[in-house]
């Protein structure tokens, strides 16, 4: 063993010199924690973070007053935050104001924000933790039981996520520091390619070298899997004879065998016919819509993990795929119960209370609030994601810490396939830009019969324009889609990359929204109204005559 501490050893060296039990303990040992031990780690690291943060320029500016005495004092005095609260410091990448020196700045789009992008600093401590977390995810991805994993240097990795400076681009870079993994195509090449080029090259290389790991957004992984089927089947994407020259004999045998089986079963080739994945990981929203199909395609159920620009990689499922566990040393987690969110919705000045990891209850939904540890900038930050606690213990995983299931983005946001985040403001912007005489609308995230996500807009047209404008459902859809693509580049990617057209339009009778307000004494929510409100809205189309409000123009 080299004369270095374990902390300094690369993961690849650990595989050579350290017992696999010890490696498991180091990376996945957090699964054995009791909730008290888990909270001890959380509290101790939060204490460190509070010390660093309150001493920083950012902390002093935001804390306004004496530094907190302890974590409870901080939670009582410091309000929940959003990106806007940090924008002036972080968008200027003002490292001197931060609790610790940032090594890298990660960016993402800021839908509905005052600036097109959001940036988030990553310190050395955060990056070290991130590396350990992604390796833990890989180990758990390959594990079929507790303590068992299968990672080797030179394994091949098909990676279906965006490169740096997006958070997803950090994954291959972090992994590259720890172990030699063959990314398909290599990271430095992939960073200069378009999405489809990357996929095509990746699959071709996969057919040559085999694929051990696959990681992507659930929606993207699904699309990529279908493309692979197309490449290996018939059609214009079909593999050429020259491609087979680069195949290994093993792959040629598998390919021929797969062809034979598919012909017999009268189906097209699926990835599982050619590849035997060690680990299949997905992230993002709407993974539940794709998991079953992905399992069918690859023969292995995808393992979900949670990562984001602000929080980094914070949670992972295990070999049982029965809910995610949060890493104890990445962020300090708080949860806003649904009841508190309702209070906030009714009164925007209300400050919702949060509970901690040891206070969550099974089957309750929560909005996640994080404080990024190890010199991170974000404190009590609302990530905008909803989780449901699915249990406090699990006999199959032999865990005694809460596990969660990702539900969706918060109610004010419509996220389609993890690609785009549509808010009330962005829709209103689209409606205004379109010039259509839409007088009322509400948008609701629904799922198609095939269980694919879409955005359903219920719109009401100005009745005076009906005589002068063609406003068929198709025209509205076409029109609005153009402007959605115009204001939101991610929306454009939905079509470009995934071939998805997620907008559905229903035109309501003029005056329906006003009638709804009169009848129920409240306006309908613009984004994701309650299902019963949608039903009521639709019911009003048929059951009740709409009473027009007479305006000056009518007279």
């Amino acid at each position, binding site marked *: *063993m*080299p*004369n270095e*501490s*374990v*902390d*300094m050893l690369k993961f690849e060296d650990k*595989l*050579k*010199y*350290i*017992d*696999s039990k*010890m*490696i498991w*303990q*180091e990376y996945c*040992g*957090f699964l*054995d*924690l009791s909730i008290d*031990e888990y909270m*001890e*780690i959380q509290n*101790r*690291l939060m204490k*460190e973070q509070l010390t660093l943060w309150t001493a920083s320029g950012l902390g002093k500016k935001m804390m306004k007053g004496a530094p907190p005495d302890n974590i409870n004092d901080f939670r009582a005095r410091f309000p929940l935050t959003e990106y806007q609260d940090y924008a002036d410091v972080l968008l200027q990448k003002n490292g001197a104001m931060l609790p*610790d020196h940032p090594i890298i700045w990660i960016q993402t789009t800021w839908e509905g924000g005052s600036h097109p992008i959001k940036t988030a600093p990553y310190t*050395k*401590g955060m990056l070290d933790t991130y590396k350990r977390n992604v390796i833990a995810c890989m180990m758990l991805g390959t594990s079929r039981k507790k303590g068992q994993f299968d990672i*080797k240097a030179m394994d091949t990795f098909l990676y279906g996520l965006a490169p740096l400076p997006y958070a997803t681009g950090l994954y291959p870079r972090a992994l590259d520091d720890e172990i030699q993994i063959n990314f398909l195509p290599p990271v430095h090449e992939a960073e200069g390619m378009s999405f489809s080029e990357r996929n095509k090259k990746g699959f071709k290389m996969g057919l040559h070298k085999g694929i051990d790991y696959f990681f992507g957004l659930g929606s993207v992984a699904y699309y990529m899997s279908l493309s692979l089927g197309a490449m290996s089947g018939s059609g214009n994407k079909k593999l050429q004879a020259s491609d087979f020259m680069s195949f290994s004999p093993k792959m040629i045998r598998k390919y021929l065998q797969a062809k034979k089986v598919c012909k017999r079963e009268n189906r097209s080739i699926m990835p599982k016919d050619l590849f035997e994945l060690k680990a299949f990981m997905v992230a993002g929203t709407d993974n539940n819509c794709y998991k079953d199909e992905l399992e069918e395609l690859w023969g292995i159920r995808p393992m979900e993990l949670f990562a984001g620009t602000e929080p980094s990689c914070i949670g992972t499922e295990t070999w049982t795929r029965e809910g995610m566990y949060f890493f*104890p*040393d990445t962020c300090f987690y708080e949860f806003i119960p649904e009841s508190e969110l309702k209070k906030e919705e009714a009164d925007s000045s209300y400050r919702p209370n949060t509970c901690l990891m040891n206070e969550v209850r099974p089957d309750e939904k929560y909005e996640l609030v994080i404080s990024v540890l*190890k*010199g991170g900038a974000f404190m009590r930050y609302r990530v905008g994601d909803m989780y449901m606690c699915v249990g406090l213990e699990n006999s199959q995983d032999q865990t005694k810490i809460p596990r969660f299931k990702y539900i969706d983005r918060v109610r004010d946001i419509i996220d389609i396939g993890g690609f785009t985040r549509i808010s009330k403001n962005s829709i209103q912007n689209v409606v205004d830009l379109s010039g259509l005489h839409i007088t009322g609308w509400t948008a609701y995230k629904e799922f198609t019969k095939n269980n694919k996500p879409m955005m359903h807009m219920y719109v009401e047209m100005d009745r005076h324009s009906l005589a002068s404008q063609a406003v068929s459902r198709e025209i509205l859809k076409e029109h609005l889609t153009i402007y959605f693509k115009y204001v939101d580049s991610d929306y454009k990617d939905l079509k470009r990359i995934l071939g998805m057209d997620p907008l559905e339009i229903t035109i309501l009778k003029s005056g329906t929204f006003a009638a709804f307000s009169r009848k129920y004494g409240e306006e309908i929510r613009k984004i994701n109204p309650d299902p019963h409100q949608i039903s009521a809205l639709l019911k009003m189309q048929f059951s009740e005559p709409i009473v027009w409000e007479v305006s000056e123009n009518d007279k």
Partner: protein
Amino acid sequence: MTSSYIIIPTAALCCYLFLFLAFMAAKKTGEIKAFIMVLASCILWTGGSALMRLQAWPSLGFWFQASLLGLFMLAYWLFHFIVVFTDSDCRVMTKVWLILVLASFTFNAFTGLLLAKPVPEYAADGTVSYVYNLSWPVAVFFVVCGGIVIHTILLIFRSYREDELKKRQTKPIILGASSVLLGQLLFLAPFCKGFPIDVLSAFIMVICLGYALYKRRLFKLTLLVSKGACYAASAVLSVLFFSYWIPSMDGFMKKTLPDFPISETLMIALLFMICTVVLYNLMKICIDKLFIKDEIQRANSLKEFSHDVSQSLRINEIMDKMVRLLRDALDIQKIYVFVQNTRDLDYNMAYSLSPLDNRSFRLDHKNPLIKYLENHHECLLMSDFQCMTVYKSMWEEEKNQFTVMHTDCFIPLNDDDTLVGVVAVSLPAGKRSFSFDDLSFLSSISSICSIAVKNSRLYEQAYYEARTDELTGLYNRKYFYEILEQEYSKCEGRSLALVVFNMDDFRLYNQLYGTKEGDLALQRTARAISSCVGDNGYTTRYSSKVFSVILPGYDMLAAKNLADTIRRQIMHINDSTNDKILKVLTMSIGISSIPYTASSVSELIDTADMAVFNVKRKGKNGIMLAAGGQIMRDTQTYRNAEQEHEHREEIYSSYASTIYALTAAIDTKDHYTFNHSKNVAYYASELAYATGLDADTVEIIREAGLLHDIGKIGIPETVLNKPGKLTEEEFEIMKNHVESSVGIIRYLPSLEYVIPAVIGHHERYDGTGYPRRIAGENIPLSARILCVADSFDAMISNRSYKESYGVDFALREIEKQEGRQFDPKLASLFIQLVSSGKIKVQREEDSTAKNA
């Protein structure tokens, strides 16, 4: 060839026995147990085979069965060893193979149908060979053993492929297994016929397995070598050597020395002896150099260390010894010792190998490392710690610190269940990891040190608490007297100065900012004084707001200069507090020094105290030397004596109003006490003046006289003016007036300097007075003076319970009480002053007239 069949198995047997016995003494893990069983099987197989060839008692058949059982069990235990070593899950198959082996052997033992015992065939030259009659049922044995061997090979192969680590760990085992297989193959080869290659290959395999265990640090190598083992090994080797070479030697001797048949035996015996001794010494030297020397050295070091630390109660001494031992015995270059701080329970770096190490690092008592060591009283390798989940809660700064410190192992120092310290050490120079021996050595040090640290902590805590003031960390009053006495006894003609710092208006400071801020002021002041004094003297907290500094070898001037530097620093202490504006802290400082102004310890204290009182009376914030030195201030300097006199008058006039107000209050209640106080003030001040005290001290004593009975204001008039003798209860009430007086004066900061006189004026020189029952010169001089004056006036006055006595009677009484109630010197001086008329007797009518 026959001799090969005897010598090689015998040598192998000896080695197996030797290893078997050695491993029986080792700590038995699963792997060690399995290895012991492998050795036992080898012994049975090799021993049985050898004894069968010797046709030893009881029979050839018996030893054949023993040898066969050994061989089968060797296959089984080898399989079991691999299962344990590779951590494979083969519980069912382990049982299945055991049952099959035992069943087939038992069946054969009773029936002999599978493999019958061999038949000895005697050749013409006398050599014996053993012929086995093999038939097809022997295949059962081959199937069972073959199955076990294949399963074993599979397990080794699987483990080899699993990961890099197991690949390297499995290599010696693969080598051993290959040796056995090769041995069995060669055994069938014609050129090996007659040579026990199978036994030799099995022996090589055992050595390989042992090496694999050693690489896993499962046993101590030194366990295998000892003096006894050397004797045994050299004896066995000599016997084997001679039994092989005796025929040749015999022939050689007969040929060369045919005429001395007796010398033949003698020569062989002599050669045997020399050979054994040489072999023994060679082995011993070799083993000593390899293992034992270090072991003995370490054992001696530990013994010495244990003895040394048991002699010491000083934690620093213990740490020093431990650090040296670690450096010398293990060649460790980086050693840091953290010791628990009893105040906040955190662990501060108390000691390190190099004085240049940064010792500011501390371990929070909630640090996961501390928690682990508290629960597991054993050494913890950094590499193990880093693999634990609790390591995740380490702060980045803490991790970095350990990296900077190059820490590779933590040694706990426990006091029962309390972790009192942690020793962080780096790897020994030139080593990549700690060996089993190193860790055992560190554990021993940990145990020895834990006991020593526990004792020394108790001692040092008691030692510290007994001598230290909790608030300021300075020496306390008790230790002040101890040091002063020590230094006085040592001074022998050298000077010894005492500087008393009395904080001005501290009560007001507390009232203005609260006691918490007051405590902070005391701490800051203490730091300022002790940092200025340094190692030149002793800084102590004498009483609540009084600090004193003992300065051996200081004369008055040097002490005054130091005191002035400190006074100036203290005045600026509060400049740096940003949060609020605090009052400037000033000090009234009195200095006295032996032999210039005092000749005894008590006089040194009294005169320094008196000097402080004088500064207080002259407006505070200044320094005064005992025996009427000039006061020193920054802001006020007096151009001439007249100005100073005016200033003094001014101060007195401001006190005078307070004193008159108080005496007027007592007058309204008890006119007698009012007059009495005035008379006592007069007698006392005259006596003080005659004693040679300076004017300021005389004034203090006069004021004390005026106020000495002010506490009577709280005594019921029925008791105060009761005609006749007081009951015991009433007398107790009456006695309380002393404390009451002090209680009233305490609220007058400007008059507090009279308290020593007031509180002591009912003390008796023989120690039977009240309230403190102090005696002799422990009673302040001012109180002794007041006592004489008070008693004299009480005797010559009319009281509600008695008529006045005559002056002569009173003076006689005073004379009688010399050395009992009164200071003899003062009493005789007073008698002399009254008798000579220098003190005028004050009668009640005189006082009344004066008042009128």
